[in-house]
C-alpha cells in the first residue's frame, strides 16, 4: 500500500528526500486538484469510499497518516 501511495505522490510532489512522516502540506502545497486527485486515487486504488468526515488535513498529512487512514477504512493492515 505504502509503495503505491509513494508512487502517486512522486508524480505530484518533490519527493526526493521525503520520509514517511514528513508533512506534505507544510509549504502550503494544497492545490485543489492535487487534494481531490489524492482522494480519488485512494478510493479507486483501495476500493474504499472516503466519507466527508474523514476528509481533513491531519488524515493525509504524511505518507504514514494516509496509510493509517486507508487502513482504518478498509480494515486491512497497513502493509
Amino acid at each position, binding site marked *: 500500500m505504502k509503495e503505491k501511495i509513494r508512487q502517486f505522490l512522486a508524480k*505530484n*510532489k518533490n519527493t526526493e528526500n521525503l520520509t514517511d512522516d514528513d508533512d506534505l502540506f507544510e509549504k502550503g502545497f*494544497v*492545490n*485543489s*486538484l492535487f487534494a481531490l486527485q489524492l482522494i480519488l486515487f485512494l478510493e479507486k486504488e483501495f476500493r474504499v469510499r472516503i466519507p466527508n468526515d474523514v*476528509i481533513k488535513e491531519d488524515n493525509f498529512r504524511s505518507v504514514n497518516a494516509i496509510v493509517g487512514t486507508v487502513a482504518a477504512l478498509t480494515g486491512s493492515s497497513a502493509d
Partner: protein
Amino acid sequence: MEDEKKIKCVVWDLDDTLWEGTLLAGDALVLKEGIREIIQELDRRGILQSVASKNNHDEAFAELQAFGLDEYFLCPRIHWGSKANSIREIGDAMNLGLDTFAFVDDRASERGEVNFHLPEVLTLDAAGYREILSLKRMNPVFVTEDAARRRAMYRDEMERNAAEAEFSGSSEAFLQSLGMRLRIAAVTEADLRRVEELTLRTSQMNATGYTYSFEELRALIHSEDHIFLTAELSDRFGDYGKIGLALLERTADRYVIKLLILSCRVMTRGIGSTLLIHIIRRSLNDGKPLFAEFLETERNRAMYVTYKFMGFEEKTKDGKKILLAYASDIKREYPAYIQVSPAEPL
C-alpha cells in the same frame, strides 16, 4: 437548445473566403471587403479564430502575415489533409467543444465534408460573410474585458501547456517555475460582468452556486455588510485575467463566506487555497470567527476538499447544505510558489 450555443471559435478557409483569388493559381490576392473589420470585431467579442486551408503552409502563412492578420489565428491548420480533421485538432488544442465551432468556406464540398464528420459544427457559406457578425450565435451575452483578451489568454495557455508537457519534474516543481502573482482587490463596477459570468458559468470550483441578479451584485459592492473580492492571476506566460471571486458576509460577530469561485482554468494552481488563506488571515486580524456555506453538488467535491484541507470543519449539515467553520487560530502562510498582493488583507 443545442443550436443556441454561442460560437466560441470561427475557423476560416483562405482562398476565395478570406481573400479573393487562389494562392496556388498565382492570383493577385485581395482581402474581401470588410473582412478585416469582421475578424477584428469577432476578436473583440472574445470569439477565437483559426484557419483550415488546403495550401502549402509556408506560402499561405506568409500571405496572412503580409495582410497583418496572422496574429488573430490560433493553431492554424494549413495543409492538404481533411478539414474535418483540422477542425477536430483545433478543438482539442483549444479544449473547446466542437458544438461551439463555426466553419466558413466558399466550397460546398468542404462544408459537406465537415457536416458529415462533425455535424455539431456550424458551417457557413463564405458568400454570406457579411452576415456573420449579426448572427445570434456570434453575439455573446456580454463582452467583458476578459473576453476581449481571450485570444491572448488562450495563446498563453497553450504555451503553458506545452511547457508543462515538456517539464520533467513533479507538478509541484512546475508550479514553482511559473512565477505566479495573485492580486486580490475589492470588486468594482467594471468587474461586474465578469463577476456575473463567473457565478453563472462555474460549477466545479464553486462552493455554493448561489447566483445574484446584476443589480444585486452591484448592491453588494456598496454593502457595508459584505466584503466582495476578486483575484487576478498572472505568471511568466502572461495574464489569466480575473479568475477568482469571494463574497463574505460581515455580521457583528462573524464572517460567513457566501461565495467562493475559481475558474476551472486555474484548478491546478492552488488559487482556491491561497484565496482562503487571505480570508482566514483577515478574519484572524479582525478577531472574528470564520464560517463558510457549502452546497454539495455532483461536481463540486474539489471545493469541499479544499475547505477541509484548509482546516475547516463541518458545523451543521442540512441535506446538501453544509455550514463549515475555520476551527483553528493558526494564521496560515501563503504557498511559497505564489506572490500575493496585498500581502496583508486590506
